């Protein structure tokens, strides 16, 4: 199908009143949640995930909502970075470097405006790229056999290990833990119970919503309760407003950051945090004349643009290959699976209304976000004044209410809290949660493809390395595993290895 025609059918889906309303709710809530310090895109999506199912929204509507939350939070996150000097998630560390100095010098409003425009340029250009790249990528994916998929998933895990700031071995431990957690329950192939320890409640496996809420809401609140994030809110300021000339001045930086951000977003394992760090570093190298870090507009526009371009870019492999490129898209992949939809090459032909409806909604959502974030940014900034003791208990209550609404079981709440405690301990000892999440979501797909490949070869392992594609992917994976042994990736020290 021609991309334009397909996109038009997508707009027919995205422009229905329900989907428009949901897209608006998603981006507005995403901006609001993203604006809260300590709460990033993955927390936003996790928090609203159970409600989507409990409300029995149709799949395309639920995904439009979740995607809106995702890229909407990319717009909101900059607010606390600029006004408070507190990045909401690792992807926003770079935004503080030039954003906070601008706010301190009284140009907070201009800083918010240019970063909003940057987010829009990055987000929208990435959606356009996605519109034309998604289908060619699915053609490539259609030629993939089970062995190729196994190799591709191993490569994704390997890249996560390479890009993480901590020890790569901890990423592998996290992946293994995620796979084991996913195996709890009845094995789909044979009906054998695995890791249930005779418990009836565990027969159905660990619920995806409980896992996400435990990992990214309960654990987060425990962390926040322990050490209060505090900061003084800068006023948006009375300094000179953003001029048209300044926007023009930033455009080359934005375009460079879009390309870099989108490319890094599409790569599995690298997400927004890496993209914004690299965009800032690259822009500093190209155009710094001693002004970066002291409030240079380009130093703010580049990471914000790359951040949003990467967020959208990371949805491309999730939709086209069924392999998510980041933690948040892994949560969204899990959401697809709960609707019994398998993302991947067939999604675009079998469920075009879901795939193209989602893509079309992202054009609309980014426009809504531009309107929400330029004139109304002050409203969202007010959220920073809501006391923590109202905000975070409320988030905790909403998390549990969501899990209860989707499961109707108080036992599920205990499991959720248990996973929250596990996640808290893992974070304390430096085991990253994103690879665990990614592995949990991909486990079923990985095992199915692994078993399918081996049943084709009647148990011979050589089939895993039998096609040219799989050999290339395995070699890349070996390079990715070996690389950290030779040389540590050089990133800004503040960027923790969590691909947002």
């Amino acid at each position, binding site marked *: 199908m021609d991309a334009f025609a397909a996109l038009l059918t997508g707009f027919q889906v995205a422009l229905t009143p329900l989907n428009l309303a949901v897209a608006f709710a998603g981006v507005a809530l995403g901006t609001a949640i993203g604006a809260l310090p300590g709460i990033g895109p993955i927390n936003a999506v996790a928090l609203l995930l159970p*409600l989507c199912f*409990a*409300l029995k929204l149709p799949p395309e509507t639920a995904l439009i909502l979740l995607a809106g939350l995702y890229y909407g939070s990319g717009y909101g996150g900059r607010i606390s970075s600029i006004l408070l000097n507190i990045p909401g998630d690792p992807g926003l560390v770079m935004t503080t470097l030039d954003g906070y100095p601008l706010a301190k010098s009284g140009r907070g409003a201009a800083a918010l405006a240019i970063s909003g425009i940057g987010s829009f340029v990055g987000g929208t250009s990435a959606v356009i790229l996605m519109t034309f790249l998604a289908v060619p990528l699915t053609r490539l994916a259609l030629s993939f056999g089970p062995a190729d998929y196994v190799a591709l998933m191993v490569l994704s895990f390997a890249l996560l290990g390479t890009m993480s700031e*901590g*020890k790569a*071995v*901890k990423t*592998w*431990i996290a*992946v*293994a*833990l995620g*796979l*084991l957690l996913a*195996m709890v329950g009845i094995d789909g*192939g*044979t009906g*054998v119970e*695995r*890791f249930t320890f005779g418990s009836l409640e565990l027969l159905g496996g660990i619920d995806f919503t409980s896992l996400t809420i435990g990992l990214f809401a309960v654990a987060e*609140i*425990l*962390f*926040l*309760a*322990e*050490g*209060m994030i505090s900061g003084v809110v800068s006023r948006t300021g009375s300094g000179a407003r953003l001029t048209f000339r300044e926007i023009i001045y930033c455009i080359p930086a934005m375009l460079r950051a879009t390309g870099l951000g989108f490319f890094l977003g599409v790569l599995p394992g690298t997400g927004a945090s890496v993209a914004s760090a690299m965009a800032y570093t690259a822009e500093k190298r190209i155009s710094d004349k001693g002004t970066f870090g002291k409030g240079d507009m380009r130093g703010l526009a580049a990471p914000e643009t790359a951040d949003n371009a990467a967020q959208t870019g990371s949805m491309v492999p999730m939709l086209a290959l069924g392999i998510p490129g980041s933690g948040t898209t892994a949560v969204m992949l899990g959401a697809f699976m709960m609707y019994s939809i398998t993302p991947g090459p067939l999604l675009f032909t079998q469920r075009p209304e879901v795939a193209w409806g989602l893509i079309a909604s992202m054009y609309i959502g980014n426009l809504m976000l531009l309107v929400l974030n330029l004139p109304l940014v002050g409203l969202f900034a007010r959220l920073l004044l809501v*006391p923590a*003791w*109202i905000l*975070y*208990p*409320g988030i*905790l*209550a*909403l998390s*549990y*209410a969501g899990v*209860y*609404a989707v499961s*109707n079981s*108080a036992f599920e*709440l*205990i499991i959720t*809290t248990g996973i*929250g*405690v596990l996640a*808290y301990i893992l974070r*304390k*000892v*430096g085991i990253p949660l994103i690879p665990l999440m990614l592995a949990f979501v991909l486990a079923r797909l*990985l*095992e199915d493809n*692994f*078993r399918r490949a*081996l*049943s084709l070869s*009647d*148990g011979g392992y050589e089939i895993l390395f039998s096609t040219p594609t799989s050999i290339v992917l395995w070699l890349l994976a070996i390079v990715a595993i070996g690389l950290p042994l030779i040389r540590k990736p050089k990133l800004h020290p503040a960027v923790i290895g969590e691909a947002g």
Partner: protein
Amino acid sequence: MVDRLVGLICALLGAGAIWHAQTLHVPFAADPVGPRVFPTITGGVLILGGCILMLRPGPVAMEFGTWPRALAVLVASLIYPLLLLPIGFIAATAMLCFVAALAFHARPLPAAVSAVGTAIVFFVLLDKMLDLPLPRGPLGI
């Protein structure tokens, strides 16, 4: 030190997973691989990772803030599911939020007011407006 302990626990977990996988009995052979191989490989990765961590531990900055506050939130979260059905969503959630608000440095009176407010707002929003049934408790509101 922390890394050595984490490594040991991971290696033991991996060994446990492999042992568990071997006890699985498949009544009929649906495919040549069966349900055992995948957990065995995963357990192997865990043992390998755990051993590497034990042999070459790195420094782990275990920073604890005021952890009793996190513990208070945790205890409230564990009691919450036990109270949810007997006393209903509003009362249980208000208690959860009250403890959590105190943990986030609120003074008792504002904490109580915001906790009750939060519970009622969510009940109205979820149960009344979005039609997701929440436990009503003895009052049956």
